[in-house]
């Protein structure tokens, strides 16, 4: 109707919703991608608003998951400005379902038989309690793997992530020897990805496609966080074991629940693995107390 007159107001509203975050997180996919993360098509579509007005929106938003712009290798190496990603794993909730693992393997096309996420059966001492401990890459702040890489193929970004450039990796496997958490896997043979994936341009942020003779590992799914969504393991876990967030926002979320990170760690006495090694991991664990499931249920 009187669309011309109200254009400026609509633009304002659009900007408002476009920067909106996290609608409908009960669904693993967040339907709103922040405006700056979307690759705009430049083409506008007209649509009807709630109040019956006609507004315009970029066609890119018509896709359930709008495409994000393809990043250059240099941008992928720099990371997302202003972020510092952190994960919290609540050991009291894990019963070794390994939905995290299967979702991760599926989404990253990990070579069958290998896993980026492992769920370990832990028992620290003879008379101490057994528990299930999922391990991802710790994305250390003093990463031993990055220290030893001879060609900058694995690197640490300003948002804290440790990623791999499989187009540069020479396959010396020094990083695997250096990692005390045994988090890295190697593509000993053909990674066995389907042709459509194998032909893609390699992205450090999706870690796909995996390549023969190079190293792979958990990447904290930066392609998801760019769209304001949670990593696959977080949304796949039915027990809400994994929390993911931004240390600079002081919050972590498993999709259903969101906590203030500093409070959560303080209240539940969170800790990191192998603190004595000085690797400064970005993954925190909440101790397996007041458990939701007995250890045996995971056997």
């Amino acid at each position: 109707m009187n669309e011309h007159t109200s254009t400026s107001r609509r633009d304002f509203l659009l900007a408002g919703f476009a920067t909106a975050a996290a609608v409908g997180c009960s669904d693993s996919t967040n339907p709103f991608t922040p405006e700056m993360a979307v690759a705009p098509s430049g083409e506008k579509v007209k649509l009807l608003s709630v109040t019956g007005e006609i507004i315009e929106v970029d066609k890119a938003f018509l896709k359930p998951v709008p495409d994000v712009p393809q990043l250059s290798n240099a941008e992928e190496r720099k990371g997302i400005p202003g972020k510092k990603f952190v994960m919290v794993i609540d050991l009291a909730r894990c019963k070794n379902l390994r939905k995290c693992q299967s979702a991760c393997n599926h989404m990253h096309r990990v070579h069958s038989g290998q896993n980026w996420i492992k769920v370990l059966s832990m028992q620290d001492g003879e008379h101490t309690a057994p528990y299930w401990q999922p391990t991802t890459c710790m994305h250390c702040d003093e990463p031993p793997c990055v220290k030893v890489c001879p060609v900058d193929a694995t690197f640490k970004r300003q948002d804290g992530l440790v990623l791999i450039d499989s187009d540069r990796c020479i396959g010396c496997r020094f990083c695997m020897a250096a990692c005390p958490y045994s988090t890295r896997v190697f593509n000993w043979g053909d990674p066995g990805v389907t042709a459509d994936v194998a032909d893609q341009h390699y992205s450090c942020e999706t870690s796909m496609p995996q390549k023969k003779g190079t190293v792979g590992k958990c990447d904290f799914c930066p392609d998801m966080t760019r769209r304001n969504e949670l990593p696959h393991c977080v949304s796949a876990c039915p027990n809400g074991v994994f929390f993911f967030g931004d240390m600079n926002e002081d919050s972590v979320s498993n999709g259903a629940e969101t906590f203030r990170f500093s409070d959560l760690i303080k209240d539940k006495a969170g800790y990191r693995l192998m603190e004595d090694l000085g690797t400064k991991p970005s993954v925190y664990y909440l101790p397996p107390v007041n458990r939701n499931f007995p250890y045996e249920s995971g056997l």
Partner: protein
Amino acid sequence: MKKLHHNILKLLVTLCCFATAGQTANAQSDSVPATKIIRMHYYNVNNSMQYILLESQLKKEKTFTPQANKTYNLYLDSAANLVAMLKTDKDGKAKAFIPPTLKAAWEGSSQHTFIVKEGDEELVSDYVITKSKIDIDTANEDGARVINVSVMKMDNNEWKPAAGVELKVGFERLGGILSAGDEETYTTDSTGTVKVTVTKDSLPGNEKGIITIAARADDNETFGNLLAEKNISWGLPTEINTHFFDQRALWTTRFRTPIWLLAMAYSIVIGVWGTLIYLIFQVIKIRKLGRT
């Protein structure tokens, strides 16, 4: 505990459909029937933008498989009002905006039924949404910060309070809303409002201390998904510290090698190779001495 309330309309339609080409390939070990499932989600963002998200899945035993590249027709109220022809993506999802052509139909009623058809087959016919709006107001009461959220519904062309709507009220964060108060969720009272006293102080905001308040209803049976947002300067001004990333350390890139390491490496390499180059010249000298 994480409880995912999918108050979603689930429609279990047509049994045993091995018809689709894509599915026949993995039409698995026969006998067990597969069920087509269509999930519908209505979204209202800041009382402006609205759309429908459709999810198409095939349920077999306990596993759900997304149905990619399926085409559906979405109608508003009756088969006369086509909203969109949808084609699902690889995750079995499709999104539809309501086109301006349906303005009259949309404004004509306070409740709308969305109908999904695959060809002539009606898969969804009872997904009903009541028009609603959601607003955020902030206040300072006796030094305490308060967020008031009101939800109104359309009833006989009038906005009336919507009671009993479960909302998350808090601050927008990566992956979720961090509740501003002590409760995980709040429910609107008879006036259609919730009042949340902010207990989480000094949360980091942007460099000016701006932080986004959000109120959200997830898959409400009557209203669908509602979201309202408001920027406010309640946050702690936070400078992003890039010093950590910019330092010279053993884990940085080759462009940020520690100076001491560079000095050691270069002095050794230059010292040793300098001597070696000198020695090569000595060999050349021996050669020259032999020639003359």
